[in-house]
């Protein structure tokens, strides 16, 4: 049995931040997973990934093998079919895909090529946010190397499988991370989300079956092919397979990113890896997986960071990159910052989102700037509910409601104090 200290995702990532080239990638087993995938049936690839319990790393945690199994295959299936990597990392507080793209671009390419084999796809796109300039440079280099080595293009590794992969640099907007909005962006349109169903697996990019997944999800796939489903499940402390990139930002001693077994506790990540709070500061709470997750507080620190356990604690693991709130930072100011972000990035399509976020932002601004009214907290609670699941076209507004509703729960006294004292107690008077 492999020890659980293994770090497959980051094994090639160099301390100096330089990328590994194709030869270096092959030396640690790179492209063996793809060779294996073209030597078995697509169905066997899907089954292996299903058995591995790999769940999507973009935030929602959807089982990857199941997603692949929704794509029509066989002689009657529509073509071309597409594989899309969501490399539009823009969730505030999230900085994990940057590392994977810049540090080991071939790992992403191999994962996408294997996914393409599994669903009999023809073409792939890496949808990279425009600001990731270094990542774009390294992906272009890696794509050229992979084509030159026959890992992309016609008859991959001598098989009957052909797959073309292109890099698309985005022109901004957080909503592009929503998978159907991303597809519209790739088609050259405004990035408004689409109605679901149909889901992308059936009708996605250009109306054709499409698998769209987060960078980290694809990066796990080569290792599953090479080492097997049981090995992958064994990397984790819990039911969801694999390791996870966990990050911490905010006023801790050592902000950073670590690959650890899935299900490592919040306390271990925060105290052992991030070194705990900076001297003189106290921990107040954290958003466990980016801006659109509910706050967790002291009582939740022993929660294992996986999809199931964080949900039980009342939040979501999201992207697994935590944002820490300390006692010298104003929780109202923090939530105001978050809601301003969501209000700005709303695509404006549906009313609970554009209207709810605009109201929430205005009220938070009033409270933070000493103009809070006694009824404001009820109004905020109403808006959080109004923006919640079931009322909106996509997950942006429900995500925005999460830090708001949980802040009202855990930091209520701080909100009330702002209203009572008609000022922000954290600002010098």
């Amino acid at each position, binding site marked *: 049995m492999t020890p659980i200290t293994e770090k497959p995702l980051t094994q090639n990532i160099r301390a100096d931040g330089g990328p590994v080239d194709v030869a270096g990638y092959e030396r640690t087993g790179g492209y063996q997973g793809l060779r294996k995938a073209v030597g078995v049936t697509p169905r066997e690839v899907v089954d292996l990934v299903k058995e591995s319990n790999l769940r999507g790393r973009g935030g929602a945690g959807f089982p990857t093998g199941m997603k692949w199994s929704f794509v029509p295959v066989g002689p009657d299936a529509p073509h071309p079919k597409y594989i899309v990597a969501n490399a539009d990392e823009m969730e*505030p507080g999230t900085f994990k895909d940057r590392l994977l793209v810049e540090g080991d671009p071939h790992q992403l390419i191999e994962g996408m090529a294997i996914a393409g084999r599994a669903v009999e796809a023809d073409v792939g796109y890496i949808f990279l946010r425009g600001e990731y300039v270094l990542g774009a440079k390294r992906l272009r280099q890696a794509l050229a190397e992979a084509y030159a080595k026959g890992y992309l293009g016609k008859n991959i590794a001598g098989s009957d499988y052909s797959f073309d992969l292109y890099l698309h640099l985005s022109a901004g907007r957080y909503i592009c991370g929503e998978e159907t909005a991303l597809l519209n962006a790739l088609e050259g349109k405004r990035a408004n989300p689409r109605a679901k169903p149909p889901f992308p697996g059936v009708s996605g990019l250009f109306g054709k079956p499409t698998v769209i997944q987060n960078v980290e999800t694809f990066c796990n796939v080569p290792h599953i092919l090479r080492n097997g489903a049981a090995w992958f499940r064994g990397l984790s402390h819990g039911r969801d397979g694999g390791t996870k990139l966990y990050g911490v930002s905010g006023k801790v001693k050592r902000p950073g990113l670590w690959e650890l077994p899935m299900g490592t506790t919040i306390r271990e990540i925060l105290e052992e890896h991030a070194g705990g709070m900076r001297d003189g500061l106290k921990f107040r709470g954290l958003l466990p997986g980016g*801006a659109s997750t509910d706050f967790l507080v002291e009582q939740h620190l022993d929660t294992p960071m996986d999809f199931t356990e964080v949900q039980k604690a009342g939040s979501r693991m999201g992207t697994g990159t935590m944002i820490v709130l300390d006692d010298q930072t104003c929780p109202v100011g923090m939530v105001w910052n978050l809601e301003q972000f969501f209000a700005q990035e709303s695509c404006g399509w549906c009313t609970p989102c554009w209207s709810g976020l605009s109201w929430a932002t205005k009220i938070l601004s009033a409270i933070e700037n000493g103009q809070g009214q006694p009824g404001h907290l009820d109004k905020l609670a109403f808006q959080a509910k109004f923006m919640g699941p079931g009322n909106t076209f996509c997950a942006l507004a429900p995500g925005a409601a999460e830090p708001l509703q949980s802040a009202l729960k855990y930091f209520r006294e701080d909100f009330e104090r702002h209203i009572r004292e008609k000022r922000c107690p954290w600002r010098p008077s």
Partner: protein
Amino acid sequence: MLTPEEREEIEAELPHYPTKRAVCIDAMKIVQRHRGWVSPESIRDIAELLDISASELESTASFYNLIHRKPVGRHVIWLCNSVSCWIMGHDRLREHLTKKLQIQPGETTPDDRFTLLPIVCLGCCDHAPAMMVGDDLHLDLDPAKTDQVLEGYK
């Protein structure tokens, strides 16, 4: 009029997509790289090349924050204002920059040297606060380090 070079770069993207329209964002970024921004005239020229209407292209252009629809300075400062940078001192940095450059976010200095724009999370939250100047990322900033960084952009 698109230059032959711009046209060639845009046409090189066409084989990657099944529709011409899908290339329009790449096309606008190509023109912007050459000219600094995407003018109404460029919108018409790109639309014509890609067989879509200018108003369709305009609807796409106006959606995306990395497409400049006004001229910008020689260097664009993208100051991250998302939550981790906010916790680590974004407000102080923004105040410093607006005072130093004598412009507000969205404006360009009179000598056309800098345009100051806000940007959402740049994905380097363990080195907050952060900003980009043009294509370059700058990390772990404070007012003094920011001054030093800007000296490198004339």
